[in-house]
């Protein structure tokens, strides 16, 4: 531990969180810039083990950037990211990632099963073929998201919700302990939304940690027990019911608020989720 870090109380967590080996993800003073324009500024937070966390914030708040910077896909200008107290390269095999659905070309000539098998590649290793055991594991993941029957269909011939489920199955196939998901609920049908949240809750029950970029303020309170409110800086972080207060929402979303007031009220009425 950093000797200069003072002893902290829970209330000071957002300002200077204590980094611990327990925490699946600790972000410290992370700053990311595109073309000298900061996108993330001095971002600092810890994620408690086995939490289901939402990253919430207005458009351009840097939600996806935060995930990508944590995973080393975007270089950080400053700051540290640690996983269970270790750097990324020692923790990679324990981390799963679901990118935004729009980030890939769905016309690509692969089947749903092929895509899910990609989640096993790291375990398979270089120069080896995907064995029957790995394929069976991939198939089990497809079954878990209710897509077994469509395993051999070319991915472009699936609906948006089914494509998102394939991505989720691929992340499951990684058998990680910490999952990053970039807008897993964007543009999916109601059945898929239910299926996804069901799988996420199962994962949490198994002790895994899930971090989702989420855009729907109406459902944050009921889906997630932990939330990070982001607008270039961390506006608030902590249990959802304490984080998504109206004051914090105003702070992060600014004036665009008729809808937000309702959302804040809805969350306040729901109270603590756990």
């Amino acid at each position, binding site marked *: 531990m950093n000797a200069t870090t003072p002893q902290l109380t829970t209330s000071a967590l957002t300002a200077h969180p204590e980094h611990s080996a327990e925490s699946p993800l600790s972000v410290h003073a992370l700053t990311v810039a595109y073309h000298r324009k900061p996108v993330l500024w001095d971002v600092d937070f810890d994620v408690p083990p086995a939490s289901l966390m939402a990253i919430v914030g207005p458009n351009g708040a840097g939600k996806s950037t935060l995930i990508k910077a944590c995973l080393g*896909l975007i270089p950080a200008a400053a700051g540290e990211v640690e996983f269970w107290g270790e750097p990324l390269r020692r923790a990679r095999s324990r981390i799963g990632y679901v990118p935004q659905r729009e980030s890939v070309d769905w016309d690509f000539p692969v089947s749903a099963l092929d895509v899910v098998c990609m989640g096993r590649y790291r375990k398979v290793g270089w120069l080896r073929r995907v064995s029957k055991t790995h394929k069976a594991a991939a198939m089990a993941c497809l079954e878990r998201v209710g897509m077994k029957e469509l395993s051999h269909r070319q991915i472009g011939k699936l609906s948006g919700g089914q494509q998102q489920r394939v991505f989720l199955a691929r992340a499951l196939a990684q058998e990680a302990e910490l999952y990053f998901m970039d807008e897993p609920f964007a543009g999916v049908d109601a059945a898929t939304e239910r299926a996804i949240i069901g799988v996420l809750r199962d994962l949490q029950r198994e002790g895994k940690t899930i971090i989702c970029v989420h855009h729907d303020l109406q459902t944050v309170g009921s889906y997630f027990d932990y939330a990070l409110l982001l607008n270039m800086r961390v506006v608030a972080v902590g249990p959802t019911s304490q984080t998504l207060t109206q004051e914090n929402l105003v702070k992060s979303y600014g004036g665009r608020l008729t809808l937000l007031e309702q959302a804040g009220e809805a969350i306040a009425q729901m109270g603590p989720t756990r």
Partner: protein
Amino acid sequence: MSEAWHHFIAGDLVALLSCTLAVVTCGVLGSYLVLKRESLMGDAISHAVLPGLVVAFMISQSRAPVPMFIGAGIAAGLTVLLTMLVRRWGGVEPGAAMGVVFSVMFALGVYLIESEALRDIDLDASCVLYGQVEYLVWWDAPKDPSAYLKLATYTDTDIPPALWALGAIFVIAVAFVAAFFKELRITTFDPQMARAAGIPAWLVQGALVLLVALAVVASFQAIGSILVIAMLICPAATARMLTDRLGTQIMLAGLVAGLCAIAGYFAGAKLPTALGAEHALNIAGMITVVAGLVFGLVCFASPSHGFIARAVRQRRLAERIAIEDLLGLLYRSAEAGETFVPIQPMHAAGMPVARATKLGLVRAEASKLGLTDSGRERAEGLIRRHRLWEGYLVERAGLRPDHVHATAELLEHVDQPAAIPTQSGDLDPHGKAIPPGPETDAESP
């Protein structure tokens, strides 16, 4: 050995083999460029190597393959690097960045060739564009067939070195694709996820681009850069129209490329003289034409992605919908007490009466039409879906009952069980009975 065979081996075999090896290599590697939507990369590299060749020639004062390879390789690497920089700093899309870089590089090459220092050397921009397949002859090929079984025949005679270079790059490319198939697949499809999982996408994709550059350099002396560009794109695009699996795609692209090379070679080198023309045609040009024709044909006639197949599928769907609409009409009039409906107006409205009769769904009786048992069964399913949708749209989507018919009229034709709303009552919003569903409905959880 007969005179004709010896003539073929000495005059054509090396050229034919060189073309085929070059073209198959391009076809295999090109699949990845086409799938990445970076087909232009081959174009860029094949033009941009020209200044590399000229500079290599200026330094080494020879056209020996090794310095040429090094020069072209450096130029190709520079092109890839510059393209990335222009993309990042110029803020333009990848195609434009490549266009800027390769045209400037090519122009630089042309300028160097035309400049004072190199005016009278034997390096011609048009050779780079069209290649010199016709010069690849094995002039001292032995006449004795048994000589072909001896290794010395291949080491001691003057086989054009281009053949060895192309053979080597072919073997390397195929081995690379086979060995790193899964890494290439993930880094081409989803480079971000690959990187997050610790698979170095830049290394795999960089090796691929380097191989493309090597293939381009090895190929264009034999077949010219126009054919190289065509072969990086055409066979891959053709294969994409025929399959939805990556492995099949790669193999098909190689196969299509090989067949185009052989067909194009004979069509260019042999066919014109056989038909009485005085000169053979440019072989590289002919192979490109054949590849283009094959692509056109496949676009039109591919069983899965082609124009004809699509037209047939649309036609079948249109027919199914028309028949279902006819069945629906008969069912509703039977509900209203009129089991048989006059045929003439239905004919006049263009309803597929004859087709439905042939399928045994309806039968005619004294110039009137009614449902058969199987027709009634299908109509029940259709009307059931229609009324379930109406109920759904009113109850769940909050539409007014008089606004839901048109939407239900479209959705009723979707018959996958998962896409049918669940039943919540016995009547639709207009008070009509919803026909019972198949038995399995009751059992489902």
